[in-house]
C-alpha cells in the first residue's frame, strides 16, 4: 500500500517535471518557432542572415550580459543600462576630441569611461537603494532623467564650460555636439584584428574572445563570496539582512558592475557601428538588452549567461528578418517593424506580469 502510494507520487512528480520543463522554456521555444518562420518568410539567404547575426552578436552581447548580476541580486532588470552606455560614449567622445584612433583609442576610451561608469553606477545604486521593491520603474525613469542631463551637458556645456573647438564635432554655432559623430578612427579596430571568413561568414574572433572573457568573469563572480551574497539577496532580502550581509553595499556593488559592463558594452557596440548618434545611440540600449535576455528565457529573478546568448541570437534574428517577412507576408515592411517593437515591449510586459503573479502566489502561500 505504502509503496504504491510512493510510486504514484513519483509518477506524478515526473509528469509535472516534463510539463514544467516545457512551461519553463516556453518563451525561447516560442521564439525559435517565430524566428524560423520569419527567416523562411523573409526569403533572405542564410549567409546574409548569419553575417548580420554575427555582427549583431558582436555588438550587443556584452550589453545583454551586463544585465545578469543585478537580476541575481534581486534588483530586477536594470533598465538604467543606458546610464552605463552614456559613460561609454563619454569615453568615445573624449578620444575623438584627442584624436586617438585604432586599438589605443579603444583602450583609452575604456579607461576614460570606467571611472565615469563607476560614479554613475554608485549614483544609480544609491537611488535604487531608496526605492526597494520599485527598482525597475525607478531605473527606467532614472534612465530617461539621465538622458536629459546628458543632453544638457553635451548641448550646452560643450564649447562653453568644456573648451572644445573642433568644428568636426561641434555644431556650427560653437556650442554643443553635433547629432552624429564619425567614429571611423576606431571602427572595427577590435573586429578586424583577426577576422577569418568561414564559408562566407566573417567572424570577428578577437571581439568574441573578449566577450567570452567577460562571460568567464561573470561566471567567476557568481562563484565567489560576493556572488553568494548576491544570490542570498535575490532569494530573500530580509533573510540576507539577518544573516549579516550588508544589503545596501552589496546592491551598490551589483549595480556598479552592471553599469561598468554596460559602458564597455556600448564601446564595443559603437566600434562595430562606426558612427555615434550623440543624442540617440544610447536611447534604446536598455530596452533592447532587456528584451533580448527575456526572449532567451530569463526572468525578473533568474538569468544565466546561456539565456543571455540564446536570447540575443533569437531577438536579433527577429530584428534581421522581420521587415522582409512583414513585406512578403503582409505586403508592408512597416508592419514587420511595428511587430518587432511590439515583441520587444510585449515580452518585457509579459515577463513583468508573470513575475508579479509569482509574487502574489508566494505571498498568499506565506499567509496560508
Amino acid at each position: 500500500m505504502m509503496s504504491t502510494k510512493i510510486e504514484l507520487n513519483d509518477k506524478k512528480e515526473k509528469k509535472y517535471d516534463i510539463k514544467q520543463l516545457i512551461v519553463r522554456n516556453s518563451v525561447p521555444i516560442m521564439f525559435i518557432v517565430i524566428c524560423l518562420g520569419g527567416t523562411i518568410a523573409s526569403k533572405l539567404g542564410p549567409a546574409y542572415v548569419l553575417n548580420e547575426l554575427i555582427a549583431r552578436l558582436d555588438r550587443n552581447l556584452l550589453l545583454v550580459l551586463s544585465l545578469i548580476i543585478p537580476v541575481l541580486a534581486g534588483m530586477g532588470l536594470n533598465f538604467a543600462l543606458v546610464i552605463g552606455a552614456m559613460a561609454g560614449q563619454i569615453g568615445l567622445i573624449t578620444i575623438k576630441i584627442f584624436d586617438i584612433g585604432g586599438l589605443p583609442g579603444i583602450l583609452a576610451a575604456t579607461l576614460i569611461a570606467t571611472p565615469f561608469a563607476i560614479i554613475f553606477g554608485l549614483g544609480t545604486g544609491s537611488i535604487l537603494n531608496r526605492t526597494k521593491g520599485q527598482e525597475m520603474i525607478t531605473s527606467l525613469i532614472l534612465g530617461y532623467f539621465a538622458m536629459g542631463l546628458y543632453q544638457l551637458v553635451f548641448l550646452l556645456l560643450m564649447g562653453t564650460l568644456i573648451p572644445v573647438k573642433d568644428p568636426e564635432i561641434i555644431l556650427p554655432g560653437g556650442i554643443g555636439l553635433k547629432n552624429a559623430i564619425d567614429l571611423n578612427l576606431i571602427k572595427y579596430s577590435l573586429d578586424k584584428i583577426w577576422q577569418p571568413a568561414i564559408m562566407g561568414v566573417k567572424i570577428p574572433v578577437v571581439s568574441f574572445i573578449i566577450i567570452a572573457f567577460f562571460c568567464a568573469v561573470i561566471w567567476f563572480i557568481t562563484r565567489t563570496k560576493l556572488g553568494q551574497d548576491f544570490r542570498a539577496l535575490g532569494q530573500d532580502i530580509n533573510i540576507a539582512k539577518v544573516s549579516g550581509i550588508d544589503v545596501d553595499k552589496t546592491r551598490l556593488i551589483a549595480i556598479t558592475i552592471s553599469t561598468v559592463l554596460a559602458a564597455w558594452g556600448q564601446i564595443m557596440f559603437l566600434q562595430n557601428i562606426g558612427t555615434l548618434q550623440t543624442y540617440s545611440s544610447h536611447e534604446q540600449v536598455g530596452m533592447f538588452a532587456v528584451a533580448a535576455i527575456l526572449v532567451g528565457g530569463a526572468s525578473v529573478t533568474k538569468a544565466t549567461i546561456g539565456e543571455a546568448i540564446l536570447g540575443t541570437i533569437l531577438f536579433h534574428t527577429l530584428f534581421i528578418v522581420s521587415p522582409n517577412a512583414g513585406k512578403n507576408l503582409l505586403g508592408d515592411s512597416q508592419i514587420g517593424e511595428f511587430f518587432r517593437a511590439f515583441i520587444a515591449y510585449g515580452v518585457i510586459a509579459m515577463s513583468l506580469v508573470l513575475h508579479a503573479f509569482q509574487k502574489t502566489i508566494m505571498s498568499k502561500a506565506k499567509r496560508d
Partner: protein
Amino acid sequence: MKNLWKKSIERYGYPKVYITIFLILLLIIAVIQKQSIPDLLIDSLIRIGMNSILVLAMVPGIVSGTGLNFALSIGILCGILAGCIAIEMRLVGLTAFLVAVLINIPLAVVAGYLYGLLLNRVKGDEMTVGTYMGFSMVSLMSIGWLVLPFKNPDMVWAIGGRGLRVTITLVDKYDKVLDHLIKFKVFDRNLPIGTLIFFGICCLLMWLFLRSKTGAAMIAAGDNQKFAEASGINVNKQRMIGVIISMILGGIGIIVYAQSYGFFQLYQGPLMMPFVAISAILIGGATAKKASIGNVISGVILFQALLTISLPVINKMMPEGNLSEVIRIIVSNGVILYALTKMGGNE
C-alpha cells in the same frame, strides 16, 4: 524667512515650490527679454486646457490604489480610435466631438476592464507592468492603424490607399470646437473658454463622484486595502472602477487635446503621453497614493505654463539646440523620480 520656506515645503512639497520659483524666474526673464507677456499667458492657457483632462485622468487611478496610471496610453488609444471613427462617419463640428466622446466610452470601458483584471493580479507592481503594457499596446495599435479598414481619403495615405496617416488633421472637421465654442477675444486672441468650462465640469463631476458612496468606498480601498476589506468593501471591484474611469477620461482627454491642437498623432504619438500627465499631477502636489482635484488644477497650470513659457524664453537665450525640450525631459522625469523615492521612504 527660513520658517516660511520650511512651512511651504511641508505644505506643498519640493516639486511644487521649486517649479513655482522656476516659473516666476522665467516670467521675470521674459519681461526683461521684452517678450509679449499677454501672448505667453494666452498660449499657456490654451495648453492648460489642452492637457487638463489627461491630468484629471490620473486621479481615479491614484485614489483607488493602483498608483500612477503609466498605461494611460491605452485609454488614449481608445480616444484616438473613437476620434477617427467620428471622422470616418464624416461628422463635423460639435456633433463629431460629442460622437467621438460617446464612441470612446464603450471602447475605454472594455479596455479598462481587461487591464483592470490584469492589475488586480499584479498588486504592488502596477506601475512597472503598466508602463510596459502601455508601450506594447501602442506598438500593437501601430499595426492596427496600418490595417484597420478606414476609407476616408482625408485620413488614409494618398499612395496605396491603405493605412492611416501619422498625423490626422482636424481642420474642417472638429478643429477647436471646444476652444472656440464661446467666442471671447482678448488682445485679438481667442481664449479657450469652452475647453476650460468643459474641464471645470469634468472636475466638478469627479469631485462629486469622490464624495458619493462609490467614491468613498474607492478612496477607502486605495487608502488601506486590509482595513477596507475588513469593513466589507470589495477592493478589487473598487480598483477596477478606478482604472475604467481613468481610461475613459484618458480617451476623452486625447479628444479634447486633439481638438485644441488640431491634429491626432497616431503610431508612436501616444507612447510618452502618460508621463506628461503624471508629471503634471505630481507637480501639483499629488503622490502615488494621494491625489485631489486641487492637485490636478495647480499641477496642470504650473507644468504647462512652465513648458509654454520656457520655449521662447530659453530659445532666445540659447538659440542652438532645443534646450527647452531638454528641460522638459529633466523636469518631467525628475519629478516622477522624486515621487518614487518618496514612496520607497514611506514603506
